[in-house]
């Protein structure tokens, strides 16, 4: 009953006119950045981080969560209509969704994507509501050694598991950790890698890293390599699902949700594996004429399932963020940065010290989902019009917003030069296929992990054995090792299934 009361209090906070307006603004902005190429939720939130100086925390977190969610809805629109998935999560949606659109069924694909996202988002929010306090209760008992290993777990999953190459993922992670070392050491106050620049004493800001790696790098990359890219857009058609579409979509939504939610809950985020798994499952279960549509006219299950899985994962990723303070994706890493701007480190204590904030945020997830359904079903035509903005103007405009984000933090021209340098780094990483998420996660979690590690060793009176002597940390160490091995097996299985499914 406690949970229900807390949630009701959360709704009371989230449903004030001002907060509802922030949620609406966030959802609309999120949908726009999801639809537009070259800009994603992580960078949109990062560019708007300076508002944390002025806007009250509950309002800004509701706003940022709206962007995070909205981008997922918007991303599926681009996948279906343009066959250019904005992020890995909508890659699978593009597979079947684009085929459906080519056969004049864009409307049905968009409808099942939006409704599936709604169902999955709502179910996963219920899971967050029920499980997050429980995880937080449990997490209070963790000490520095356990925390350190949890963060190592996040590092491992983000860098070694999710990418294509463990080596390049780890390289990116260490680059991020190195960037996180810049500035004053948290424990002793010693200056590290500041090169005599007073600006570097505070460290490299997460805004600079995210905006540089994603926005500036994207614009530079577009200029250098993607000038002549010509997309063809599919015709829209009426957003409508037939009875047969419904009958095929509903079970796929539920299965996608069931697959996606657990993947979000564990600090092994990333939507790649659950969406591919969901696609494989849908194809396996399809029979007769439904199966024949896969890979040909486009099967609606192949859009419904993965879209639901995607949203369920993204929503459930709030659990590790809020209860453990561990981000598992670019956007959740930037959200963690937003909390830090307010002097709050998410963790198990958040549920006691900032209960009203947490519950308002959770309540806003329910509200946001509903808003997004309304924004995306009847209004999808409006968003599609955004795709008509010519690319040169769009990309150049992104630079203006990047300047606000980077310069607005502390009005230093030095930051703008650094932003450019990080942008160039991002271009190189993209060109040579290094993942960028490990850099951001490493940069933001690195200093926290280092502090936990040093505290842990101090607890062990200088002995590293502290990590294996405590049962919980020893178990976590085992999990880290398992996480390195298991997803590889799972992925191999999913890839084989996909290959089989394609040839069959």
């Amino acid at each position: 009953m406690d949970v229900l009361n807390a949630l009701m209090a959360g709704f009371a906070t989230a449903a004030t006119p001002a907060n509802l307006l922030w949620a609406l603004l966030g959802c609309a902005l999120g949908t726009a950045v999801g639809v537009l190429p070259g800009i994603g939720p992580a960078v949109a939130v990062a560019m708007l981080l300076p508002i944390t100086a002025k806007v009250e925390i509950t309002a800004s977190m509701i706003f940022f969560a709206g962007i995070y969610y909205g981008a997922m809805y918007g991303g599926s629109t681009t996948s279906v209509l343009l066959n250019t998935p904005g992020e890995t999560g909508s890659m699978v949606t593009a597979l079947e969704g684009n085929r459906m659109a080519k056969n004049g069924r864009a409307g049905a694909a968009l409808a099942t994507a939006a409704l599936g996202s709604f169902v999955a988002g709502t179910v996963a929010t219920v899971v967050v509501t029920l499980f997050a306090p429980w995880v937080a209760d449990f997490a209070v008992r963790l000490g520095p050694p356990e925390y350190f290993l949890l963060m190592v777990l996040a590092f491992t999953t983000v860098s070694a598991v999710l990418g294509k190459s463990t080596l390049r993922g780890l390289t990116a992670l260490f680059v991020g950790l190195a960037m996180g070392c810049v500035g004053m050491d948290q424990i002793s106050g010693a200056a590290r890698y500041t090169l005599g620049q007073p600006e570097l004493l505070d460290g490299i800001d997460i805004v600079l890293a995210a905006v540089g790696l994603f926005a500036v790098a994207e614009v530079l990359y577009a200029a250098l390599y993607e000038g002549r890219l010509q997309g063809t857009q599919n015709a829209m058609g009426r957003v409508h699902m037939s009875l047969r579409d419904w009958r095929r979509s509903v079970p796929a939504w539920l299965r996608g949700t069931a697959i996606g939610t657990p993947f979000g809950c564990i600090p092994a985020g990333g939507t790649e594996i659950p969406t591919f798994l969901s696609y494989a499952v849908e194809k396996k279960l399809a029979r007769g004429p439904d199966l024949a549509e896969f890979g040909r006219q486009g099967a609606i299950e192949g859009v419904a399932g993965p879209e639901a899985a995607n949203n369920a994962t993204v929503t459930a990723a709030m659990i590790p963020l809020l209860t453990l303070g561990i981000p598992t994706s670019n956007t959740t890493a930037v959200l963690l940065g937003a909390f830090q701007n307010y002097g709050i480190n998410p963790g198990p204590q958040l549920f006691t010290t900032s209960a009203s904030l947490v519950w308002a945020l959770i309540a806003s997830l329910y509200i946001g989902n509903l808003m997004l359904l309304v924004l995306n079903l009847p209004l999808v035509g409006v968003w599609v019009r955004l795709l008509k903005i010519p690319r040169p103007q769009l990309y150049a405009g992104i630079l203006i917003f990047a300047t606000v984000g980077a310069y607005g933090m502390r009005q230093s021209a030095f930051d703008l030069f650094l932003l450019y340098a990080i942008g160039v780094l991002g271009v190189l990483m993209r060109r040579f296929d290094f993942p960028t998420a490990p850099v951001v996660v490493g940069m933001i979690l690195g200093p926290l992990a280092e502090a936990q590690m040093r505290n842990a060793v101090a607890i062990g009176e200088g002995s590293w054995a502290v990590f294996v002597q405590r049962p919980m940390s020893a178990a976590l160490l085992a999990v880290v090792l398992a996480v390195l091995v298991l997803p590889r097996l799972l992925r191999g299985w999913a890839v084989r299934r996909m290959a089989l499914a394609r040839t069959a």
Partner: protein
Amino acid sequence: MSSQAPETSAGTARMQAAVAAGVFGCAVLLAAGAVGIPSNAGYGGVGPNFLPWGVAAALALCGVLLLREALTGGFRATEDPGGGARAHLSAGLWVSAGLLLNAALIGTLGFILSCTLCYWLAVQGLRRAAGQGAGSPRTWALDALTGALIAAPVFWVFTKFLAINLPGLTRTGWL
């Protein structure tokens, strides 16, 4: 997604080797910087120079392993990054000029003018990259106007409503 070494051209191999060398170089610089960081560990056995040394060592190892991959058939399991095979360098220079001039001038010109300049230069580059040619004085004027029409409202919203400090050319708060 295959884990076999892909067919790579000699040019790609050279570039990849250069990237690997760059990673190794970063590690060396990190190590050089780590020498100057104090090691006093206090109560624990670990001081502020521990992580820098660890990261430097790990990056050095990554650099060596990347170099080995580059020299033995190229980076493993790479995916096509998308876009053309060759860089459109002049377009990149236009965009870079926009960003760097913006950084250099924002304090003197103010946010609106500096960002308009950045926008204008970037559009020139991006338009050339798209093969749309250099444009005419009319399109240039239109670009400048578009840039100002994006930059000015952004400036006003952020300074007036959100009270974020952005530099102006004048003290009026509107330009």
